[in-house]
């Protein structure tokens, strides 16, 4: 029982089933999510179980869909709007930035917006510049939003369930590469509060911070580093907002070295922000500068070789770790 393995997408679906069962205010809308069950099959079966009132297909109207979700949340529902690719969230950016994120403050706290935007991002399989972006940094910079990026099936389930029980707008960003990944998901209630990083692997020589699809990749790098006698700790913040600063600073205080691995482009990414926090608050803990391994500053090209060259690979992580470990011998 406790060895139950689920795919990431199955874990998400389970969270949706459980929460929709518990709370009639939860509903979900999106393109092709009802009859077709969604492009990644996350919403399969929901229509049959909860009916066409609470599970609805939409036209291609991202701004409208997001706006409707935000309005419904203000009116007390717990809507989930699925946007096929995070790239398309740009069409509803006004509703995210100027409405969802602002409403609570603009009403002096009297209004809340328990709205969830579920989407997926990242590179994969040559879907090119408009379907491959990692845009979490855009939401991270907007106060009032929560930014959640689970890397494992269990995290996906627990965080989605928590998202549906708290009162602020959540950008829940999945990754196209993770849906088929399997992992242990305990039976029964599983709720993961926001703001709690998870140490995916313990280590003593260097802290590797990664989220979403970079977590499995970084864990692979850590395995290989282990064979080289390097003990890497892998920390997954799981939620970027709120960010578990304490866990990060604690790990860095232990290892004195840090590499941040991010699929998004280097310039202006969340890694830069985490790096700036570490150096402001743990400057004297550091034996080497924090290194960032991130995407190239480029839109993602179609060509698969270039696509791969545009985002961090296992070897990039290993090279960065070697560099922070040897840097003080320069």
């Amino acid at each position, binding site marked *: 029982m406790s060895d139950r393995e689920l795919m990431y997408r199955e874990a998400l679906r389970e969270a949706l089933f459980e929460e929709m069962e518990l709370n*009639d*205010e939860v*509903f979900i809308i999106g393109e092709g999510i009802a009859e077709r069950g969604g492009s990644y099959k996350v919403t399969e079966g929901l229509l049959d179980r909860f009916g066409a*009132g*609470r599970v*609805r297909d*939409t*036209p291609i*109207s991202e*701004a*409208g*869909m*997001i*706006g*409707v*979700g*935000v*309005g*419904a*949340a*203000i*009116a*007390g*529902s717990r*809507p989930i709007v699925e946007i096929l690719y995070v790239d398309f969230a740009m069409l509803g950016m*006004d*509703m995210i930035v*100027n*409405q969802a994120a602002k*409403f609570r*403050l*603009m*009403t*002096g*706290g*009297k*209004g809340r917006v328990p709205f969830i935007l579920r989407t997926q991002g990242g590179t994969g399989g040559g879907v090119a510049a408009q379907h491959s972006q990692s845009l979490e940094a855009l939401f991270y910079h907007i*106060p*009032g939003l929560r930014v959640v990026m689970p890397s494992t099936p269990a995290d996906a389930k627990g965080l989605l369930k928590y998202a549906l029980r708290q009162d602020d707008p959540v950008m829940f960003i999945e990754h196209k590469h993770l849906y088929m990944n399997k992992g242990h998901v305990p039976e029964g209630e599983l709720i993961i509060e926001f703001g709690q990083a998870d140490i995916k692997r313990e280590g003593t020589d260097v802290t590797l911070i990664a989220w979403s699809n970079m977590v499995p990749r970084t864990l692979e790098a850590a395995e290989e580093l282990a064979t080289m006698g390097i003990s890497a700790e892998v920390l997954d913040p799981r939620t970027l907002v*709120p960010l578990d600063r304490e866990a990060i600073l604690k790990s860095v205080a232990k290892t004195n070295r840090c590499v941040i691995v991010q699929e998004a482009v280097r310039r202006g990414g969340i890694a830069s922000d985490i790096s700036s926090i570490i150096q402001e608050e743990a400057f004297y803990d550091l034996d080497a500068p924090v290194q960032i391994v991130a995407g190239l500053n480029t839109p993602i090209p179609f060509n698969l070789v270039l696509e791969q060259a545009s985002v961090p690979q296992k070897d990039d992580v290993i090279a960065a770790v070697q560099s922070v470990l040897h840097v003080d011998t320069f």
Partner: protein
Amino acid sequence: MAKTARPNTPSKELLEKLFTTAFRIRNFESEGIKLYRQGLVRGYFHPYLGQEGIATGACAALEDRDYIASTHRGHGHCIAQGAEVGGMVAELLQKETGYCKGYGGSMHIADISRNNLGANGIVGASTPLGVGAAMASQVRGSDAVTVAFSTDGASNNGTFLESLNLAAIWNLNFILIVENNQYAVSTKLEEATRETELYKRGEAIGVESHRIDGNDPLLVYETVADAVKKCRAGLGPILIEAVTFRHSGHHVNDPGKYMPEEKLAYYKERDPVDRARDNFISMGKAAASEVEAIEADIKAEFEAAVDAAKVAGEVTVEDFQEFVADY
């Protein structure tokens, strides 16, 4: 598609309500502008002067469970939906006792407790937000209706098409009131679109749509009441284009020189507050003394609100920092 027939004789109670609301808005705006000129109100202030008939008539047709969504010109909607002038003045004066603790101001004013989704600084935002409230009602099996107040300017924005279309395919209890005051700041509607009869955009996506005189509070009431009834019977959404005109510039500091004088005179002749008063007197058989008493009360209410707001507590940086600690 103008509506003209008067279905029932309106009750005195209704006529009194329409007049009271219209006058309360008129007074709030005229006096509010004075406060602005005294430097007591900052930021933007878009007066609803001249358009009072629309909010007044529409909200009078709603029940407590119904929702509204409002615009950047939102004081009138807020008042018509039952907000108290005290909380509104305090909001404009940035006080802690304001509806939004002084964090929102004119452009975001709202009494959330009265199902008002708020004024909004983004032109066009009221429509999707309002459709969202209508969707929430439908999902929870309520027959509550949502009225989104919107503008001629917003009709050229993509949100108009997207959200009204969503309301249509889902048969939501949603009423879109396009307050066509014929200008977006200084831009004439004829310059912003070829087809200035905006209700046609509703028809083109299969939505029952009307165009009415927005300066007639009773007609607005009747049209919206009818639309509410249809919505509750599952026949929503409905679009109502209410034609009107501002009595002043776009915002307090805009002299509005671009507005032709004859046109202004024409609409001032059809002043919605005067009409509400005339109706109250003629159809409601109200005595002059009744009218005077109402006006005096409303004026006193406003003055009391100003006095209270002036001495109300200031927000503090410490409170604010605590408020945003989890941002």
